[in-house]
């Protein structure tokens, strides 16, 4: 065993102690949680922050003169700065709190309505989650713009030459995920952003699946909008962020009306608040925002380089063992991918394998993963998806492989 190996193994056991849920049993077996691409688990450090908030300083923010409100406001705004620093945004007001990735996408899609007209073109990729297809279809229906799709190859990689052919002076927006939720493909967003900018199109990158594994630098990427959810990054559900370049956020009209987002209101005219509040109508998820900041602290303390290298090791270890199983086919074999393995075994329905593995305490996702176009591309009803995080172990993968073999035996 190499020194690095020892170091990493030591870390995993220590890290696992931070996650109380990993101690529980399911159907009488120790839980093996491989559904991380759907949601990650929460470390005690983040749970403590949530408990502390509701135990000690729960208050509505920004307008109160009392101590609790000030403490809550400070913590919430400090978390925004943590998020800004994490993503290397130029300004804290370029970080808009949202309820999650889907909210962020809808915010941009709705706000763009007034900027698009008939004849304009919007490009999405074939690898998108439904949440990054439907809002743009709705936007195109509202504005008369046309939706175009970047096709993919059988490895699950986007065909960049086709993307270049789609780009022209009418292209106004390009939407692509950083990493595909169904296949784990890491998309070449640097090239996509550069090519889109060459025709003056704005780019929104859906980072829901990338943020648990890599630390994006929005300035280096020169991306116009970047969205993600806290619950995929060891944070709570119901909170996320939209990064937008200041110039874009100033240009876009507000998405929702309400308290917090206004400067002055009369029945004749309302003036909107400055960024970021212009896009944050109503009482926000205060505790969620603070816990989001704590989750980023937790991940950064471990370090994203260490996380990525360990997760790659898990991916390789699991892939090699799975390919030994007769009839097992992995969907998504891109050269650049994260620790997501989407697969089927022979003609066995994914639901059947998922059901049997659940009986053995193993949590996986089965179905179309909200990416029906990808399943149509491969002409399958769905897949089984195992997705790993830095708190998973090789021993868990061994147990999963044995359970999978047993399920296949029962179902064949």
């Amino acid at each position, binding site marked *: 065993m190499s020194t690095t190996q020892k170091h990493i193994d030591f870390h995993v056991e220590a890290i696992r102690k931070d996650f109380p849920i990993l101690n529980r049993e399911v159907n009488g077996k120790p839980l093996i949680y491989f559904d991380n691409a759907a949601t990650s688990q929460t470390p005690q450090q983040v749970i403590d922050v949530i408990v502390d908030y509701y135990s000690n300083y729960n208050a509505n923010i920004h307008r109160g003169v009392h101590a609790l409100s000030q403490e809550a406001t400070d913590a919430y705004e400090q978390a925004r700065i943590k998020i800004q620093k994490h993503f290397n945004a130029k300004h804290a007001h370029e970080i808009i709190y949202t309820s999650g990735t889907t909210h962020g996408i809808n915010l941009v899609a709705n706000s763009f309505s007034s900027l698009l007209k008939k004849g304009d073109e919007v490009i999405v990729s074939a690898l998108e989650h439904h949440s990054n297809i439907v809002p743009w279809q709705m936007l195109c229906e509202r504005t008369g713009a046309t939706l175009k799709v970047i096709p993919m190859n059988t490895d699950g990689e986007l065909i960049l030459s086709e993307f270049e052919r789609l780009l022209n002076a009418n292209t106004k927006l390009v939407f692509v995920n950083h990493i595909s939720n169904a296949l784990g493909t890491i998309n070449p967003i640097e090239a996509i952003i550069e090519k889109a900018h060459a025709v003056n199109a704005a780019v929104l990158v859906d980072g829901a699946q990338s943020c648990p594994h890599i630390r994006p630098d929005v300035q280096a990427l020169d991306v116009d909008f970047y969205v993600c959810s806290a619950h995929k990054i060891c944070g709570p559900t119901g909170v996320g962020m939209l990064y937008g370049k200041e110039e874009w956020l100033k240009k876009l009209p507000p998405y929702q009306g309400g308290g917090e987002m206004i400067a002055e209101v009369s029945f004749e005219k309302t003036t909107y608040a400055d960024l970021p509040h212009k896009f944050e109508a109503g009482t926000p998820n205060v505790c969620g925002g603070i816990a989001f900041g704590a989750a980023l602290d937790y991940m950064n303390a471990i370090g994203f380089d260490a996380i990525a290298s360990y997760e790659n090791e898990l991916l390789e270890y699991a892939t090699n063992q799975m390919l030994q199983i007769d009839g097992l086919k992995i969907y998504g074999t891109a050269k650049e991918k994260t620790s997501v393995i989407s697969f089927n075994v022979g003609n066995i*329905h*994914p639901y*059947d394998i998922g059901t049997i593995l659940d009986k053995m305490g193993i949590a996986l996702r089965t179905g179309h993963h909200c990416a029906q176009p990808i399943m149509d591309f491969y002409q399958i009803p769905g897949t089984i998806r195992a997705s790993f995080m830095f708190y998973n172990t090789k021993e868990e993968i061994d147990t999963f492989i044995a359970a999978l073999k047993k399920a296949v035996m*029962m*179902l064949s």
Partner: protein
Amino acid sequence: MTIEEIQNEIIDEFSMFDNWEERYQYMIDLGKTLPLIDDIHKTDDNIIKGCQSKVWVHANMNDDKVAFTADSDAIITKGIIAILIRAFSNQHPTAIIEANTDFIDKIGLKEHLSPTRANGLVSMIKQLKMYAIAYQTQLN
């Protein structure tokens, strides 16, 4: 036999199994062996789309009794369908409308009738009852 008698018979059969593996193996075998529906009835009109698995249901009435045939693309779902059809098929519409599915709970398969599984079974049971209501209206 009444629906209740058939359900009790199924509960008895399942009580012989010692663990989940035997129960599931039995259902998988049921799912594999039984021809549950004629291909001509596996149409889009008869499909119930679950998020996870698809279910097809067809009904007809002979001598005041409703007969069901059904199928699924997932074997475990199909096994449960086989059990449900055994209990509900060839019964008077009124009996089908009044019957419940508590026996599924008693044989340890309750989780499959949870709406969150989105396997089409919950909608299928609703559909069986809808057919029974429709046929009862014809009888009246």
